């Protein structure tokens, strides 16, 4: 995203920013930036109906710059399209004030955003991140098992499941081995065909066609339990050699094979936290977030009172100043900032600000479209690693159940 113009008053956060989305990823940033009550101006096509004195009616599509007061946003992850709907807030020649319009933000077409209640710290942070011109890491990953493959694109801020391939592979059977081998071949060929369709090897880079200067091949990660990924790599090699597919041969060195414990997408977490992969991807946000979540889980398992999750618990901990300098980390999902209600959003922004300013702790906003963000969402969207243990965050209700657990072991007949 390119920042074309910025007029933001740092003190009270009033002002606007004019932005130009360049990549599909930018739509995701725009989705996170644009909130209800914001004022958004963008080019739109509006159908205008003219009624003449004679009673005849003609309608034309008129391009017009519309300013709307945002009421809701709708983001389609797969296609990367953002639709923002709201009431027209500024007078113009074709549309009445207060009429509803849905703006479809498009690539290479600028928009102007003015925050309804000012640009807060989180919004500014987002804006900075969105306009980061640094080369963004991208990674294609295929998480696969026997007969199932999830082809996904991992970007800085998103994990987008592009395609799920499912091919029925007969299991090994007495006298039916042929079926298994054939099924696997069919599965591999289907997966490779699908993958190549998305990779688009003919053009130098993946779907970032706008930036033709990026000609670095995107790494491809194959992960599976067992030997499926290895076998698939072998299959790719054989296919590439047999067909003398030059682009595919060129891709081969950038293929990584990793181990995952399941063919499902959420085992990407595990893949990306494995040391071999980490060393190659350490600069990506994803890997950092994943590592952080793992740390959190480890602390939680230790149960030493230093890891807490859930809105109330975390707020309590922040109040006590436990998320402070020297290891205190607040993990928060960006889904919370997209909350429809302004109060809700303010609550989280306030929490972030408190951690940053009062305690001096670290704040990590995790993308809800990444696996790490999903894990966090499971925990209520917010979690904290504390600098010192707090034992009794819960308000002491229903204590003292510990005694019961001892009895079950001897009986032999458990309820499960």
């Amino acid at each position, binding site marked *: 995203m390119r920042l074309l113009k910025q007029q933001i008053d740092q003190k009270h956060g009033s002002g606007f920013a004019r932005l130009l989305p360049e990549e599909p990823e930018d739509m995701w940033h725009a989705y996170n930036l644009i909130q209800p009550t914001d004022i958004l101006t963008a080019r739109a096509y509006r159908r205008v109906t003219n009624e003449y004195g004679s009673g005849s009616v003609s309608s034309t599509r008129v391009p017009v710059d519309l300013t709307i007061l945002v009421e809701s946003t709708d983001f389609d992850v797969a296609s990367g399209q953002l639709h923002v709907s709201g009431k027209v807030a500024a007078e113009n020649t074709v549309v009445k004030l207060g009429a509803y319009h849905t703006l479809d933000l498009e690539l290479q077409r600028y928009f102007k955003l003015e925050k309804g209640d000012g640009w807060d710290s989180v919004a500014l942070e987002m804006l900075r991140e969105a306009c980061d011109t640094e080369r963004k890491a991208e990674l294609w990953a295929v998480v696969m098992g026997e007969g199932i493959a999830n082809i996904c694109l991992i970007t800085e801020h998103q994990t987008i499941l592009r395609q799920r391939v*499912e091919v*029925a592979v*007969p*299991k*090994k*059977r*007495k006298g*039916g*081995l042929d*079926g*298994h*081998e054939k099924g696997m071949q069919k599965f591999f060929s289907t997966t490779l065909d699908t993958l190549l369709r998305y990779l688009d090897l003919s053009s130098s880079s993946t779907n970032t066609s706008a930036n033709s200067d990026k000609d670095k091949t995107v790494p491809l990660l194959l992960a599976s*339990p*067992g*030997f499926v990924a290895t*076998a698939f790599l072998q299959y790719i090699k054989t296919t590439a050699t047999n067909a003398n597919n030059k682009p595919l041969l060129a891709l081969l060195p950038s293929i990584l094979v990793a*181990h995952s*414990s*399941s063919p*499902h*997408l*959420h*085992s990407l*977490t*595990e893949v990306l936290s494995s040391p071999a992969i980490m060393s190659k991807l350490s600069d990506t946000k994803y890997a950092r977030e994943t590592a952080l979540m793992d740390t959190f*889980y480890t602390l*939680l*398992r230790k*149960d030493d009172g230093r890891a807490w*999750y*859930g809105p109330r*618990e975390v707020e309590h901990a922040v109040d006590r100043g436990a998320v402070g300098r020297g290891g205190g980390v607040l993990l928060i999902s960006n889904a919370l900032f997209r909350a429809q209600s302004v109060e809700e959003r303010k609550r989280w922004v306030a929490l972030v600000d408190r951690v940053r300013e009062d305690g001096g702790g670290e704040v990590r906003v995790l993308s809800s479209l990444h*696996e790490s963000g*999903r*894990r966090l969402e*499971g*925990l*209520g969207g917010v979690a904290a690693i504390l600098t010192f243990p707090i034992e009794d965050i*819960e308000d002491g*209700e*229903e204590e003292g*159940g510990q005694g*019961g*657990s001892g*009895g*079950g*072991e001897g*009986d*032999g*007949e*458990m*309820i*499960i």
Partner: protein
Amino acid sequence: MPSHHRAKNVAYDDDDVYSDEDYVEQEEDAHMTEEDKEQMRLGTIQVKEALGSTVTVSDKEIEESLWHYYYDVDKAVVYLKNKHTPKTAQPKKQKTTPVSRFDQAASAVSTSKQSITVSQPLPSIAYPLPYDSFSATDFWKDTPWLNVPLHRLGVITMEPKFPRGGLLGGSSSNPKPSKLAALAAARKKKQEEAKSVPPLTEADPNQKADSDSAVALLDKLRLNGKDKTTPTTPIPAPISMKQKPVERKFPIRTRSPSPPPAAKVSSNEKEATKQELSQAPIPIPDLRAIPSTFASTLCGIAPSPPKRQLLEDSFQLPYSTVPQFANTNPFAGPSPDDIVRNAQAKGKPVKKDANKTLTGDKLADSVSKMTVDDTKVKSKNLNVVEEFEKSNTKRMANFVVVGHVDHGKSTLMGRLLYDLKVISDRSIAKLRKEAETIGKSSFALAWVMDQTDEERSRGVTVDIATNYFETEKTRFTILDAPGHKDFIPNMIAGASQADFAVLVIDASTNSFESGLKGQTKEHALLVRSMGVQRLIIAVNKMDTIAWSEDRYNEITQQMAAFLTSASFSPKYLTFIPCAGLTGENVTKPLEMQQAPWYTGPTLLGALDTVSATLASHPLTKPLRITISDVFRGGIQNPVSITGRLDSGTCQVGDTLIAMPANETAVIKAIELEDQPVDWAVAGQISTLHLAGIDAVHLRPGDIVSHPSDPVKLASSFTAKILAFEHVLPMNVDVFRGRLSGEGKVQKLVAVLDKSTGEVVKKKVRIVKPGEVARVTVGLERVLPIEAGMRVILREGGLTVASGIVETVEKEGK
């Protein structure tokens, strides 16, 4: 290529010719093939039945007529009836108003023949020849080898003076007309007949002998017969051998050249047959001619040595002279079809009752619907539960073999199968050789179970291998599970089909200990949490530690302590020391000098003992089959599934519904241990061949049930779980048999007391290992999960928890 074509065509022609010759020769050699004889025998009996007591006809005549009509019983019956009920001319006229030309001709000929028979005494009637008088040996018995008396010498008929028509080749004296020629001749003849029916009847048969294209088979024969027999009447039997094929050949080889009349006749006859079947002796119109003059003449004119009459129409039934033959009438009882029909008729009311007890009337409805299904699989409507109880089959038991990787599960099972002679010496030798070539000779026995290339080259089991064996008391199904932690989903799939488990432990130093940290522990917990209570612990590789008693005791103590803590009941644990690679104490008991301290049973003995204590399966509950594999069962069975029946019963012809695809299918066939069966009951791992469904609708893990009581789909469920690891609100893989899906622990509802199930603590932040808790799990996609099912939650390669589903949230509709 054209030359090639030509060559090919020539070859075809040659083939034709040769086949003709072959055929002819065959007839010359043995007058009838076995098939013919059998057909004749059956036909005779059928004709007799059809004729009933109203008409008395000799066997010989029946056979003769059958021969002429080429075993067409109906026609023969009609013919015989016509022959023996003289007053049928009028009904025929009434009935056959739309008489075809052919019929006209035929009837005309027949009337003319009748007049002949009147003038001469009917030989066949006047001469009911004894049944056993026509054997060739009898006939030739008084004939010396050489110096055959003159009157017994064959008469060689003259070759026709005109150039022979028809096809080249063939050993027959009378040329076989080419098909075209035959057709043309037939047409010509028909035209003639149509033009002049009366003249034909008076025409000299000799004229027509050459234009032998056949109006009807009978006509043909008759004319020929007349032709030959008239000059040589005194010497009846020894007709030139060369002639026989001519007469024989035609009834067999040529079809009636005028199909429309034939069809007409046959339809008439079908009606007649129906009437006969309903056993109403209705006089059949005389559509058929009387026996050939040839036959009549032969029989009538040469009565003196009846035993020498070797009529080409008569033949010896095989074994007919043996006295037992008469007694063994295969048609004495009801036919197999009748048995089935009766059984169905009986079965229907029974089924209705069964339905009420089983699944209500809906099943009956679905069954009745099923009959109009285009797949047309007939249900036998068995009461499967009764059938099962009646069948009194051997006990059946499925067991899963679990344990840490490389502890010798597959090898032990390979040894078991080899020692029980399920696997032949030859195939073992072959495997040994293959294993040696890649330098893994010790894997030979494991390769009995590990059959894919990948498994063999890597030396680990990847997927469940199924095999069967039986002892005197029980039929076992082995489910050999993979030990590697990556393939735990497959192991879960196997364990979910098992009645009990065999836990294989490597006794050698360090192996046991590493296993106890690894999959020995995990597998034991998994099989326990899937409801397996009985466990045989095979302490394997005892040979590597020289059958040390101390080591064995150490292992058993440690394992017993661990397993009881994992809530296995000590009384259901059996420890067996054995050595899979060398085969000690697998099927053969130990020799004394090896381990004098051990006196217990062999592994096989333990399997038998344990299988005797298994609980029965829920037969009367609704059908649930978890598909473990979908495959192409062959050309006949494009869609086949295997899976264990968790509950209920099914039978061939049942309609099933597969969830979550919500598609119905019909069971075409059921196989159990590679044997076709009519039904399957809970506990069995069956192969179902399905019809009326595409394979894309079936996936491993799907559940198949009857449409009357289908399994519901759940989008989330609440389960009582036993945690093996820390349980947080997190992403998990949900396993149920082959079924695996993505899910998410949404809410930790409460921690429960282990033995009473009471809520100990609400507002749970984390469930620690060993705790029992109630959690809500949301599913990414709807899965067929029901209350009472056992699920396993895994995350990041670890089994997090196992549990029983308490309530399910239905699909959001």
